[in-house]
């Protein structure tokens, strides 16, 4: 009996002793999908002999590949590199779980062009353009001096603009100046404010600027419409304007070319404000509602219809639309700023009596006769009241 028990022990011992180590590991590898286990790694680190055949011979079998149409099926003739190129050029269909089509674009390299244009050409245009017009006007002021009322003020005034006209003008002017200042602060934040005042200051300035810019824009757009409705009838170009320009508007030289309510120069400012103001508003709306109002692809399509040689791209990614809107917004805005600086000059320090027109609405009668003679005749014919505000010259 004892011999039988002893024999059983020996058989059991031999059975476990001669059983290959990897047969036990194979059970564990089933949990790793056939990959090596922690025990395999530890054994190798200890310098123990490990049967590597489970890996060496596991080189894959194309026969086992799932069909291309299956879930997690193989890519067939498409490699991973091909797939990533498709992502790189937005040719691969990407499905996302949020509401944005823009999120379906994983790689888009137009950002570098946008950044370099913004930091290069746009900033140069703003710096040289606005700086240049200020220097030119300062030089003009010292050379030409202030345009005075020839013979001095008459001491009588006539109402040039009614209060609702001035209200509309100042809503447009106030909002535009704030938009211009905050826009320039945002444009030059990285290149000027950060190097001079530091990141924290730029952060606070940029946060304030974008808040003001985004919210005051509504006043600008509304008052632009109001200004258009109020003054469009007085700003239809006519032959008189050509004569006004031919005589330098009285700014160059001493002539006082005839003009009605608005002269040629004022009409130029009016239409510049309306056309560029509408354009900057549209690109601004596109920026206010990101990816919601793309407009460049359609615009390029229309331009291509008129000028086929242009060959502008009409298939733009959402990000490209935003980049173009941003650049166009800055270009148009800077052009407006340059023109409005000149407008502010001539309406304030550049010409005696001009500010009164928008200040209290009453302008000196002699000033009005010298700059808007036909308008004064019309007003006097209508019986417009003339106020006596001082001694006659």
């Amino acid at each position, binding site marked *: 009996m004892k011999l039988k028990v002893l024999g059983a022990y020996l058989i059991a011992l031999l059975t476990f002793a001669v059983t290959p180590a990897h047969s036990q590991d194979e059970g564990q590898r089933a949990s790793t999908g056939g990959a090596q286990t922690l025990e395999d790694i530890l054994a190798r680190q200890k310098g123990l002999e490990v049967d590597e055949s489970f890996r060496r011979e596991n080189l894959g079998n194309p026969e086992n590949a799932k069909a291309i149409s299956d879930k997690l099926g193989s890519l067939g003739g498409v490699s991973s590199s091909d797939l990533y190129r498709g992502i790189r050029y937005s040719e691969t269909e990407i499905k996302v779980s949020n509401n944005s089509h823009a999120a379906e674009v994983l790689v888009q390299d137009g950002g570098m062009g946008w950044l370099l244009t913004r930091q290069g050409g746009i900033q140069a245009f703003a710096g040289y353009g606005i700086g240049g017009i200020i220097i030119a006007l300062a030089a003009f002021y010292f050379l030409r001096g202030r345009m005075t009322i020839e013979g001095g003020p008459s001491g009588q005034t006539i109402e040039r603009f009614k209060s609702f006209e001035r209200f509309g003008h100042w809503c447009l002017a*106030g909002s535009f100046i704030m938009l211009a200042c905050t826009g320039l602060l945002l444009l030059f934040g990285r290149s000027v404010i950060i190097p001079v005042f530091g990141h924290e200051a730029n952060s606070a300035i940029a946060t304030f600027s974008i808040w003001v810019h985004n*919210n005051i824009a509504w006043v600008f757009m509304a008052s632009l419409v109001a200004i258009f409705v109020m003054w469009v009838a007085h700003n239809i170009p006519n032959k008189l304007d050509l004569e006004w320009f031919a005589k330098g508007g009285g700014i160059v030289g001493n002539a006082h070319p005839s003009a009605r309510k608005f002269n040629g120069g004022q009409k130029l400012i009016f239409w510049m404000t309306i056309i560029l103001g509408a354009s900057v508003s549209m690109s601004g709306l596109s920026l206010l509602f990101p990816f919601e109002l793309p407009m460049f692809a359609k615009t390029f399509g229309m331009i291509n219809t008129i000028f086929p040689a242009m060959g502008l791209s009409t298939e733009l990614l959402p990000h490209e639309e935003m980049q173009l809107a941003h650049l166009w917004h800055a270009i148009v805005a800077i052009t407006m700023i340059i023109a409005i600086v000149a407008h502010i000059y001539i309406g304030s320090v550049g010409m005696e009596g001009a500010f009164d027109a928008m200040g209290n609405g009453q302008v000196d009668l002699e000033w009005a006769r010298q700059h808007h003679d036909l308008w004064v005749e019309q007003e006097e014919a209508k019986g417009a009241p003339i106020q006596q505000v001082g001694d006659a010259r």
Partner: protein
Amino acid sequence: MKTMLAAFAFTAVVSVGAYFVLSEMGFSSAEVQSAPSVRLD
């Protein structure tokens, strides 16, 4: 000058009003672009 100051005051009031109205209407880019499963705050 009173008209000018009134216009500036009106501009400030409308700007602040626009901020609150647009915030209430959920027009922020974050809200428009995200899905209901996204927690913004």
